[in-house]
């Protein structure tokens, strides 16, 4: 029972980070209808900056994080301006392909600048695990969970009440109608990419604190795809809930089935889930169904 609960808790925590990274996907999908396959690279660039600031320049974590977030915002803006905006009127497939190219480009750049070895973060969160009657949680995990919940609440409020959030929803709904109502679509796109990039960096810093940092971590960009599909591509809540479900399933499968077939199942389970979801409920748990007209 303790084993089960431990797996469950780890799953929830890992899932919360998945949710955070998935949020980046959802934001961009909502605004532009495209999938940002370079999200994984956005996730790893942030923590690298943070790490370098902390180790090479001895800047305290909280300031380093602040600078990282600003850097990520600029990165998101630059990418939107240089890559996405020229493709604004291109078919969605082109935009997806461009983000694949972007992921190759950014991945190559990270590799060239910082090498391929795994780096560990300096101690930010206290290392002593907290023991909840047998279930062990490290503070990093607890923090990630809290951060994700806070961000989820913030975004729900943002989309519901702020002018920008409503503009974003309008653009997501119908770009041309939004344009004719006086919403600057360019501005909304730029804001979306900025926010998505910042969210990805937050997720990356948390992940870096848990696992250490290496270019292979960018694979999370693909691991998280099942999460968005499960939750529904355009649902913020879906991203978070999907994150939890996939995280838990992954850990349970890893804990119970891996010993039977010799490991490696953790990375595959999300994709088996996604195939089932796509066949049974293509719009995910919370995604909105689109009606197509000729």
């Amino acid at each position: 029972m303790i084993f089960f609960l431990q797996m469950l808790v780890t799953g929830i925590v890992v899932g919360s980070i998945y949710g955070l990274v998935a949020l980046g996907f959802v934001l961009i999908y909502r605004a532009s209808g495209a999938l940002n396959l370079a999200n994984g690279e956005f996730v790893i660039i942030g923590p690298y900056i943070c790490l370098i600031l902390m180790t090479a320049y001895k800047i305290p974590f909280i300031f380093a994080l602040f600078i990282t977030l600003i850097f990520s915002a600029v990165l998101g803006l630059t990418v939107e301006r240089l890559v996405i905006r020229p493709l604004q009127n291109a078919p969605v497939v082109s935009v997806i392909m461009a983000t694949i190219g972007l992921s190759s480009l950014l991945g190559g750049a990270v590799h060239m600048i910082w090498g391929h070895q795994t780096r560990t973060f300096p101690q930010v969160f206290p290392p002593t695990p907290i023991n909840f009657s047998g279930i062990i949680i490290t503070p990093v995990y607890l923090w990630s969970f809290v951060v994700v919940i806070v961000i989820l609440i913030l975004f729900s409020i943002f989309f519901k009440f702020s002018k920008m959030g409503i503009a974003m929803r309008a653009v997501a709904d119908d770009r041309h109608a939004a344009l004719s109502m006086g919403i600057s679509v360019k501005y909304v796109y730029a804001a979306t990419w900025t926010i998505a990039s910042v969210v990805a960096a937050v997720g990356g810093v948390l992940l870096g604190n848990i696992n250490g940092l290496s270019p292979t971590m960018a694979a999370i960009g693909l691991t998280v795809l099942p999460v968005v599909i499960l939750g529904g591509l355009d649902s913020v809540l879906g991203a978070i809930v999907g994150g939890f479900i996939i995280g838990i399933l992954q850990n349970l499968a890893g804990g119970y089935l891996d010993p039977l077939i010799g490991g490696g199942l953790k990375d595959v389970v999300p994709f088996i889930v996604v195939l089932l979801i796509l066949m049974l409920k293509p719009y995910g748990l919370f995604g909105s169904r689109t009606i197509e007209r000729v």
Partner: protein
Amino acid sequence: MGCLVVEQLKGCDKVRNLFVRETGNYKTSYSNDMKMFGTTGAKIKALLIVIVVLSLPLYVTNYWIGLLTLCAISAVGAIGLNILTGLTGQISIGVGAFLGVGGYTSAILTSTYGLSFWISLPIAGIVTALIGGLFGIPALRLKGLYLAIATLAAQVIILFVISRWDSLTGGTAGMVLSRPTIGEYTLSSNTGYYYLCTIILLLTVMYATNLIRTRTGRAFLAVRDRDIAAQIMGINLFKYKVMAFAISSFFVGIAGALLAHYTMIVSPELYSFHVSIEYLAMILIGGLGSVFGSILGAAFITLLPVSLGSLIDVMAGFMPELYQLFSAFKDFVFGAVIILFLIFEPGGLAHIWLNIKKYFKLWPFSY
């Protein structure tokens, strides 16, 4: 210029000067329009290309023959993918795994069961087509993004099965293959294998160009342009989507088997997600929906690392540490090339080629 009457046009066609290109498009019947080689010039051009391609080993070094073989193999796979993505509009990012299915099928049949390469090659294609069709079934309900993710799932799941099914596939260690033989003669030299691959490429090109001209090809195009409209016009969406997946996977499987027998080894990491991206880049850079573009794109992507390698050889004089960064540098340039093509030349190399041709058609009097 007086050839407005049909009879006169036909007469003109027979006595045409080979070195003068026609300036207009005088097609008078549907079958005339659909002709593969409309003019004598086109026939001669096609023949010349075949002769040049087949005679290349006579005056090119062995190293280049090896590279050209790789180009030809990738071109077969790229044409396959282009049938799916370019013609039918179904994006697939699981090509790598399907290459793997082809390679492994041939490896298992030849190495474990001792079958001849000539039997295992078509079987590899058929098995890949079956599996491709299977993963194509979700395409009925999915499109665009969702389909891309379904094919990504196919990639991950197939690779997982390959690397875990130790008894059949040799697990992560992979398998060793041998080169095909014709009677007593083994195609162990680059040149022999080059001929094999180019002949298969020629057959693939012929099939693909013909496919576009048939009912099936037109149905594919209709599905790509607007699948609901196509359905209303009586095209069986399920049949044609699954068919596109199967046909495309067949060629990808053939390419996988050819590649496996060329490198003489198969192992799971040869068929990673990165390979899928490379193939997508090939058809994108080459030109979506264009057979000729697929070949250009395949050559471009295959030769890109080679030319980067020689570039680095030059630059290493100033920066010796560049050698360690080679793979990262390759990724970087690869990504940049994809983005630049998407932004500045969405039609791909095939479109650039058309533009050049158009320019020289009336050269030097282009007005």
